[in-house]
């Protein structure tokens, strides 16, 4: 696509308009996907001219090279955009238009991409099914009775439904990788610090990272390459050159040591999931990988650690939604205390309230040591597990992305703990700050005669996105996914 637009053989708006048409066809009405919370106007705002100086001083990023010229891209609704609202699927930000733009979004424009729309999500990215959206759940394009996963369910669904070749999401505990697995697409979470978080509405700042979805590894790699790089406006973004992620994708996996962590393969894992996983391992072996069993002994603490730290940070990050400067306000309030309480209680959905409560509790006097401080230390143990494995000569780890396929709408909404446990294999990468990618790994029998997809996850040492994506590419090729041109 980008090449055709760059050469001028296709008009710059062509793919954007096609994507908008497709979005309107699949998204609305009964059984519509509800993947988009807002769509761009046909034609949309013109992309930045490559030479308009939109690149900023100090950024280590090749801007304006037309990497994504004319490519339609969907963006999760927690990334600030100037032309479309940014609501985080929350009532409290209903209709909110950011007066500034996220760095990742600006880089997309500079690379020539066209913003198709803002995608649905769990409110403030808190959830694993996109059912926690204030504006209704997104449906899984593979089976509309199932959830698309979450929290970036709208972006995953938009890619799976063929509306866009790639989309941006954010991944705090698996919010890109798990929906990618549930929808049968590729989802990559880079190393913490690889992509600027400036303009990404914070959920849990030490875990949040912008991630990319693609129909194929190549699509996701191109998108990631376009948005990655140091940003002087994000003190946690790291001053490192962005590697050529899309160029060397076909280098394969021969000779790489792939570790299979036994803690990710519990006896309780569904036999069919285990079977698909074992088949995938065989494919990796055939592609030349050296397979080794490894152990990450503190994995069992990961979900608990995550559900202390993420809510703690969230309770503070969401304090700014108070009805004073922007967003919804309970206008009848007679005192400022009442204004706060009414605006926040009305503006936040039940899961957000739950997490703010949990996080406030874990930081409050009397519980701080036992919860927040302790979880910080356990986090270090989890990170150390990974460091040991890398030091032992393991290049990559391979695991299932989630314990099972996409569940049915409404199946887990009544049980928060069951919902939290769907993140069991993905939260570790966020806790350790390492990159991860989910790629399709076959299908299982769905019960209703459908065949929901599964995802396999590669994890890599910090900054090793390139070999990680090469491995993902090798696996996807073994399933016959060629990767169309983007």
């Amino acid at each position, binding site marked *: 696509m980008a090449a055709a637009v760059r050469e001028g053989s296709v008009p710059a708006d062509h793919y954007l308009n096609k994507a908008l048409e497709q979005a309107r066809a699949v998204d609305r009405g009964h059984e519509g996907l509800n993947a988009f919370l807002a769509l761009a106007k046909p034609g949309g705002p013109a992309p930045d001219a490559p030479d308009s100086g939109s690149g900023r001083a100090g950024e280590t990023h090749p801007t304006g090279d037309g990497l994504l010229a004319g490519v339609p891209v969907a963006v999760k609704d927690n990334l600030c955009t100037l032309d479309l609202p*940014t609501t985080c699927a929350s009532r409290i930000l209903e209709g909110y238009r950011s007066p500034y733009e996220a760095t990742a979004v600006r880089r997309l424009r500079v690379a020539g991409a066209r913003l198709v729309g803002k995608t649905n999500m769990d409110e403030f990215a808190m959830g694993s099914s996109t059912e926690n959206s204030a504006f209704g759940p997104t449906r899984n394009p593979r089976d509309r009775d199932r959830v698309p996963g979450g929290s970036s369910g709208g972006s995953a669904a938009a890619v799976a439904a063929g509306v866009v070749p790639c989309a941006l999401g954010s991944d705090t505990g698996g919010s890109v990788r798990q929906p990618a697995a549930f929808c049968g697409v590729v989802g990559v979470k880079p190393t913490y610090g690889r992509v600027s978080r400036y303009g990404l509405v914070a959920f849990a700042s030490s875990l949040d990272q912008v991630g990319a979805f693609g129909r194929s590894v190549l699509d996701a790699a191109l998108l990631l390459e376009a948005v990655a790089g140091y940003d002087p406006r994000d003190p946690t973004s790291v001053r490192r050159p962005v590697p050529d992620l899309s160029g060397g994708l076909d280098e394969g996996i021969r000779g790489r040591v792939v570790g299979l962590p036994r803690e990710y393969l519990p006896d309780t894992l569904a036999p069919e999931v285990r079977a698909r996983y074992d088949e995938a391992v065989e494919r990796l072996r055939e592609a030349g990988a050296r397979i080794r069993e490894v152990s990450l002994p503190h994995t069992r603490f990961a979900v608990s650690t995550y559900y202390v730290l993420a809510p703690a*940070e969230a*309770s503070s990050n969401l304090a700014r939604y108070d009805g004073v*400067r922007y967003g919804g306000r309970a206008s009848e309030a007679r005192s400022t205390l009442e204004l706060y309480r009414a605006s926040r209680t009305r503006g936040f959905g039940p899961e957000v309230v739950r997490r703010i409560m949990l996080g406030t509790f874990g930081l409050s006097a009397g519980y*701080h040591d036992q919860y927040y401080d302790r979880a910080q230390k356990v986090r270090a143990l989890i990170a150390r597990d990974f460091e040991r494995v890398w030091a032992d000569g393991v290049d990559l780890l391979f695991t299932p992305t989630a314990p099972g396929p996409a569940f049915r709408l409404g199946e887990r909404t009544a049980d928060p703990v069951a919902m939290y446990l769907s993140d069991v294999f993905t939260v570790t990468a966020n806790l350790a700050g390492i990159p991860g990618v989910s790629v399709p790994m076959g299908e299982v029998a769905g019960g209703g005669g459908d065949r929901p997809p599964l995802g396999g996850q590669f994890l890599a040492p910090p900054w090793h996105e390139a070999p990680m994506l090469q491995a993902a590419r090798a696996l996807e090729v073994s399933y016959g996914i060629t990767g169309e041109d983007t």
Partner: protein
Amino acid sequence: MTDRAPDAGYEAVIGLEIHVQLRTEEKLFCPDGTGFGEVPNTNVCPVCLGLPGALPVLNREAVELAVRASLAFGCTVHQRSVWARKNYFYPDLPKGYQISQFEEPLATDGVFRVETDDTSDPVGRLAIRIRRIHMEEDAGKSIHDRFEGATAVDLNRTGTPLIEMVTEPDFRSPAQVRAWLTGVKQVLEYLEVSDCNMEEGSLRVDANVSIRPVGSEPLGTKTELKNMNSFSGVERALDVEIARQRDVVAMGGQVAHQTLLWDERRGDVRPMRSKEESHDYRYFPDPDLPPLQVSENLIEAVKAQLPELPAARRTRFREDYGLPAYDAGVLTARRPLADYYEETARTSGAPKEASNWIMGPVLAAMNARDLEADDFPVRPVHLAELIDLVEEGTINRNVAKDVLGRMLESAAGVEVGSAAAKTPAEIVREEGLATVSDTGRLEAWVEDALAAHPEEVARFRDGETRLQGFFMGEVMKRSRGKADPTEVARILTERLEET
């Protein structure tokens, strides 16, 4: 200083928390300017408005100023300190938390001494330990009296860099507090770390105070005092609160832990409304900001730029220029004045004369015009020239005072230090003010004066020699002050003793 004698048996124990606004060009975590008086809510950006998705980016200049202050107050500056979020809700706190430092502050364990006239202190020095100095961002401004029934919020000030200094409870009287604060302010001004303007809020002092029986170790229950906007206010508020605590104890009651607001107009303290949970700040390390690293290099660089502090300068002025302690104290009170004096003294080569001039007419003129020494239109080089004119006898002291007045007039409306302002030599030349020593002209004035007062001449000759001064005055009048007084005295004596 109003040192209230402690009631028998009880002493006060006082500690301070001082917030100092740093004099940086830009805010602490965003590049907005720090100026005052702008249109409300215009000096703002996504970061200080607390917009969704915005992130803080640290200002180096603020760190350097904070390190400078920490070193000047004798603190250990830590190579690693940690940004923490202090969580509370208030309309002028846009993020719902303040970025501060908590468990690992920038600097700790300082001591700062000021000289006092307190005779009970054998060394004459008041040494107060500083527990910690940490950096934080300021909140915005809530204005309660502008609109009926509403509080108006202006976020221009939000994000201005502050340091908070916390002392140990080392003070025993409100007078000590005031003396020490005066010294602290002087140092902060010398360091050019802060404007230290309490009315504008660039220096804010909170105190905690308790009383205990003299000789007893454990501290009593303390109260916190806020809302004082001058040093004298701090002193008075403490006096009132200590008296209140004594009354409570004398009545057999117990002092309650609470926060009190000083009411300047009523001259009393009133409890601030507080809720139990308002003190649960839920501090945790800010995940948006990795720890602050202050390298050995940065510390050395700041040390190398530390200006001479007031105490050292006072000593040096006494030793190098032979000034009495009082003069040295006045001249070093503020850094611009000390610089002004020093330049004048060096240029003129007459340090004592320079001191007399500055402590006298120059300071009077500065005060009358409400000017700092660096904005005073008569520059040190010209004041030195004036002193030279007197020293070499070109003009006498009285004329010189007039010349200073003329210099101020000629500089009015002209930029400070501009060549358009007249030099003293120019004024003396243009107005013919040079001392007249020519014997012929002097004799003529003397003759005239004596001829006009024959009666006084007779009385003088009858032995009323104190009339010498009267004749001197008459001659000076006739010369419009320019006559060389020594010569006049000689001629007068000569003529009056003739018979």
